[in-house]
């Protein structure tokens, strides 16, 4: 089962290596990992999507807490959190198809952020399903390049993050 772990860490050099190394050496799989500073520049938030059963998730959490730079871990409930991913897609578009592709992008509230003679680059944010749907629609034109941020997420509204505090 997929879990979204929101991990607050000290914003120090090498922390990403410590976290990712822990996953690989203990045989835990990362589906995606996104990291960046929070409102406090001394603290970064990692959003890690892992595929793990309860026992494995418990081990992952406990082992992560053993890293001195890890401050707090929350297992975000998909229902009580908002999740987004940002994807840039560069599509082959001959000039006669350009209008069609732009229209498709508009339906998805995606933005065109770069245009050349033969390509369009589209920026889309949203849930995995929405992004997948756009990707599927664009594939027939020929996707030249694609890049995604990995999922980022926050607990909804006033909901305190569910955590087994350190």
């Amino acid at each position, binding site marked *: 089962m997929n879990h979204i772990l929101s991990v607050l860490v000290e914003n120090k050099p090498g922390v990403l290596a410590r976290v990712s190394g822990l996953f690989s050496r203990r045989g835990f799989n990362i589906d995606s990992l996104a990291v960046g500073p929070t409102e406090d520049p001394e603290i970064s938030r990692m959003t890690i999507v892992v595929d793990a059963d309860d026992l494995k998730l*418990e081990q992952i959490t*406990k082992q992560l*807490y053993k890293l001195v730079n890890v401050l707090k871990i929350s297992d975000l409930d998909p229902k009580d959190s908002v999740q987004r991913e940002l994807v840039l897609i560069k599509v082959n578009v001959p000039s006669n198809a350009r209008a069609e592709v732009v229209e498709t992008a508009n339906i998805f509230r995606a933005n065109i952020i770069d245009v050349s003679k033969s390509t369009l680059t589209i920026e889309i944010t949203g849930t995995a399903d929405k992004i997948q749907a756009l990707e599927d629609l664009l594939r027939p034109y020929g996707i030249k390049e694609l890049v995604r941020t990995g999922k980022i997420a926050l607990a909804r509204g006033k909901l305190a993050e569910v955590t087994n505090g350190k």
Partner: protein
Amino acid sequence: MRITGAEALIKSLEMEGVDVIFGYPGGVVLPIYDALFDNATIRHILVRHEQCAGHAADGYARATGKVGVCLVTSGPGATNLVTALANAWMDSIPMVAITGQVATHVLGTDAFQEADITGITIPVTKHNYLVKDVNQLPVIVRQAFQLAGSGRPGPVLIDIPVDISKAEIDFKYPKNFTIPGYKPTYKGHAKQIKEAAKLIVQAEKPVIYAGGGIVKAGAWDELKELAELAQIPVTTTLMGKGVFPDDHPLSLRMLGMHGTRYANYAIMDSDLILAVGVRFDDRVTGKVSTFAPHAKIIHIDIDPAEIGKNVPVDIPIVGDSKVVLTDLIAAIKKLSTLHADKMGWYELIATWKKKYPLHYHQDGVIRPEYVVDKISELSKGRETIVTTGVGQNQMWAAQFYSANKPRSFISSGGLGTMGFGLPAAIGAQIGRPDALVFDIDGDGSIQMVSQDLATVAANKLPIIIAILNNGYLGMVRQWQELFYNRRYSQVDLNVGTPNFVKLADAYGIKGIQVTQVEDVEAVLGQSIESREPVLIDFAVAREENVFPMVAPGASIDEMLGGIPGASLSQMIDEEEEENESYPIGSCRE
């Protein structure tokens, strides 16, 4: 006061109460060695290989309970230390390792003797630091000692670039500091402790399974009190050896792959296991799915990640062994319920102990077990520390040396590092100069570190190095005999092994070869009295096996060997013959 980073480092170490550093100099640690040159407080022990600096600091820590400190240069010096760090990491030994690093302005350029040692050692340290600002150095040292010695202890590495060592700072050792992401739990959950107390009182077939966590927490008195209060038999792990006297009537000695039959049977038959400061290592559990099928498990450990990692647990208690055991004793005393009748359990265990004592043959050749047995006997009543190599020598030492005090048996458990015995003995002897220190070693293990006989000689350390020399990589040979059709691939060391007496002599150490069983006792006796370094080369029975033994992947009650008067193992006919024709010496229980 303006001083250099190197001087600040040494001052910080002084503030931490460091009295000895094990180390080896080199290019980028020159400023640090210069600062050490006129230091009167800290003694520096010059080893002959950086791995030994690490193991010696490790042995020092295990013998004294203090944080061991080692210091080496960058690049190869630092990478040579990696095994020692991994060893300390696996056995949770408090250590601070200081490595030199190339100057900050050339970091990352593949400079001469540059190695990314913080990157390399992430998986084998509790934490590590690369110092990039000299002003941070004192607080980093402070944090490193705090991390190494508290919670579940472990090695911490500080990597110091040479320009940081030369830079100047206003030195002030920080009084207050925080490590925001580090809050070990010491006190156990009260409700869980109450539940545990109830289970303990109700159990008819309880066993205490005690490990290295008790050494770290200093909880041996509490362990003994609890065992005697509730009259529960105690088995110890290799790391826990000594936390409960091997000679105690309630002792089942060691469990696991080469544990006693009675310890393993007791675990498999028990209805309650009180596991304290242990991690259900595969060498203890054997086949996990069949481990202790009837038992409820109470697991006390300071590291929450160890609880439920290998074996499902009924009552998890996260906390320091000493604190939790103290509360548990109080909780048991408070219960008004009568303790369940355990007479049947004691009788069953007594039968097993009688039927399956640890034993060996006495047949005119030097049996390695006999040597260990004699060391145990002759050192009785003295403050003794035994260190070991890894392999058969280690297991015989664990089986036949009766450790009755904590910190008296020092062995590489988790990593199983051949060559640990000698440097660990060096560290232990320096940490506890009055103790009688034995390194019970193998001919293979000692050859991995024999250069450090120089350290023994230079410091006149009265260590007795007892080599159980069978001319084989004995444990590998044993596995080849049992599981690989006696195809002895690359295990015969006879050709090429040095004459150990001459080797000792070359270092100015007294060397004695013992080939006759009658001489064992006298030579050991003289060596103990001499209070000088002695290397004794015991020519022991070449193909002796360590029994009993749980085959890899088997359940721990399916053991080979270890039955006096019966076939040692259904798999070994020759041993069977031996068994019929020779009297059997039985080890005290």
